[in-house]
């Protein structure tokens, strides 16, 4: 398409005309020289970091269940029981040993989005979590963590970092994969600036926090 090519060249040449002294050769060194004086590493001890993470999740109206590795299956069973949840979808890589015995579920790759819409809840792990903002970050699994009304995420204590920059550093190697940052259940503040839980995404967010 010659016209499209022309537009691209025209925009680029308009940009170049405004930056006559810009030198692409020094672009990288200029970028690296940008001062980043903000906090980039943890300042609190581990116990405080985990406490902050839990507090922030509670402020978003997320439920937090603390357990040990051996207790994950029981914790999941109890949570699903309180919701009387009958149908569950699992992330493909979710470990079988974390599941309660005789657990009835489907895996995400075996199901269409229409079927997914009728399932009550989803379970997955996260890649990293941020205490400072109460955020969990999921690699892939975008549809299952969205369509069902309840989402349960298993977070291990060692995955929780204090700050946003630490989490971004962890994610750097997955930067080209689909990533979703989740901070509490779906919400809106569009009506009179009041945060209302649950618009289109899951209305219930359960975090199973696995202590070391």
């Amino acid at each position, binding site marked *: 398409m010659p016209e*499209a090519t022309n537009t691209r060249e025209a925009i680029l040449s308009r*940009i170049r005309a405004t930056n006559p002294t810009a030198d692409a050769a020094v672009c990288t060194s200029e970028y690296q020289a940008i001062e980043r004086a903000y906090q980039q590493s943890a300042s609190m001890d581990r116990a405080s970091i985990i406490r902050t993470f839990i507090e922030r999740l509670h402020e978003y109206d997320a439920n937090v269940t603390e357990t040990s590795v051996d207790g994950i299956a029981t914790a999941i069973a109890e949570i699903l029981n309180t919701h009387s949840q009958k149908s569950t979808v699992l992330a493909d890589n979710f470990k079988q040993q974390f599941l309660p015995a005789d657990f009835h579920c489907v895996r995400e790759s075996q199901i269409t989005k229409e079927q997914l819409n009728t399932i009550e809840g989803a379970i997955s792990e996260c890649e990293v979590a941020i205490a400072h903002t109460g955020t969990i970050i999921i690699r892939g699994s975008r549809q299952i963590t969205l369509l069902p009304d309840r989402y349960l995420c298993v977070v291990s204590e060692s995955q929780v970092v204090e700050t946003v920059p630490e989490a971004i550093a962890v994610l750097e190697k997955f930067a080209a994969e689909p990533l979703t940052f989740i901070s509490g259940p779906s919400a809106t503040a569009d009506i*009179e600036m009041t945060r209302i839980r649950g618009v*289109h995404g899951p209305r219930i967010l359960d975090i199973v926090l696995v202590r070391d």
Partner: protein
Amino acid sequence: MSIRVGEAAEAPSFQKAALPLLDDTQLRKNVRHATDVITNKRAIVVGEQHDWQQLRSAASAIKEHTLRHLDHYLLQFEAACTAAGGHVHWASDADEANRIIVDLVKQYGGKEVIKVKTMTSDEIGLNKAFEANGIHPHETDLADMIIQLGHDKPSHIVVPALHKNRQQVREIFMQAMGLSELGDKPEDLTNAARHYLREKFLKVGIGFSGANYLLADTGGVCVVESEGNGRMCLTLPDVLITVAGIEKVIPGFRDLEIFLQLLPRSATGERMNPYNSLWTGVHDGDGPQHFHIVLLDNGRTRILADPESRQTLHCIRCGACLNTCPVYRQTGGHAYGSIYAGPIGAILTPQLFDMQHSQSLPYASSLCGACYEVCPVKINIPEVLIHLRGRVVREQQSGANIEAMGMKAMANIFASRRRFEAAQRLGRIGQWPFVSEGWVKHLPGMLGNWTSVRDLQSMPQQSFRSWWRDRKKSAVAKEKADA
């Protein structure tokens, strides 16, 4: 080129548009309530972020650096996005962008599109272009739905329906969704939206979004949202089309560590908004299998060409300047006649038009500086406002209008002491019919525009200079007499 910013070219002046809005007590109450809530929340979460100023400085430096190497970063983004299976398109103006997008929708055989909130699509008037081509766009952001279903216009860049309260939203929903019953609790209203849109999310095959950040190093796109409607549009359809201003590119994935801290705290007063989505081209088995992105100029390279105001392009559309602005808080967003309201709109809209329209907007400010104070990327809005007022004046001077001629005559008088003192003498004599008790309250003709809203103190009988001269003379006379 035909630059378009919504319908701003046809809008009346700010001063004219503001008057009826100031009489709308319900609207003012809604705007005041919403902006109060949001500024208080923002103050709390910004206050607890001890490195806020360092984050602002780094963000500002990154934006400045990116604009300086914008061609390089756009090309890097294009290469990376294309390598990941995305298609990159370039559009000089609104019409070209609309044409590309409409053609894509037709190519994929779509009659409907589900849309994530994007100010850029409002800027180019995309919904009109869709409708003119028989394509139905569904706005899925709650506030955008309120605007679309109520045939209204956005009044805020983050919370477009901020001027409506819950009762008004209830009425709009009941009518548009054909509901006979609906509560007016925010929960009832969000529930109605959830049911109304769920089927559309599952059935409509084409999603449309804007972008908060384009990552040059990975070719990734980041969308920041709250409700999950964004995630629905970004992951459920088979085709995804995104439009983004060329200034949305940032050098790398790493820079998200700054912007993801600044934006939610500034925009909604949250430590983090519920959802951020990041994708790079297409991902096998996860989300849309066809991805197109349109990079839009529409006047941005003109702003880039003005070294004194290019900082306008640092904007990350958080809306903090609107919420804190004493002018916006009185009028709401509609007075600005543009989809970009408030202080940032007052500098962005006229510049996108190369100052041909919206010339009243740089005056819609008291220059108090509150907007600069809260800006997460340190845009010195008052500085740009003054710069633009200068451009407006210079442009008007080139034409023959009475005010410009008067100003030229004034400059001529002020340039010479002799002329200035002569003018003072004339003024002292000429003012007497208008002075009452030391004040001038009404002046005739054009000068009456000034005195209709302000009183002038009358000129004193003697100026300081002439008093000083007389004082010296009388001292000399006194010395002589004493001698």
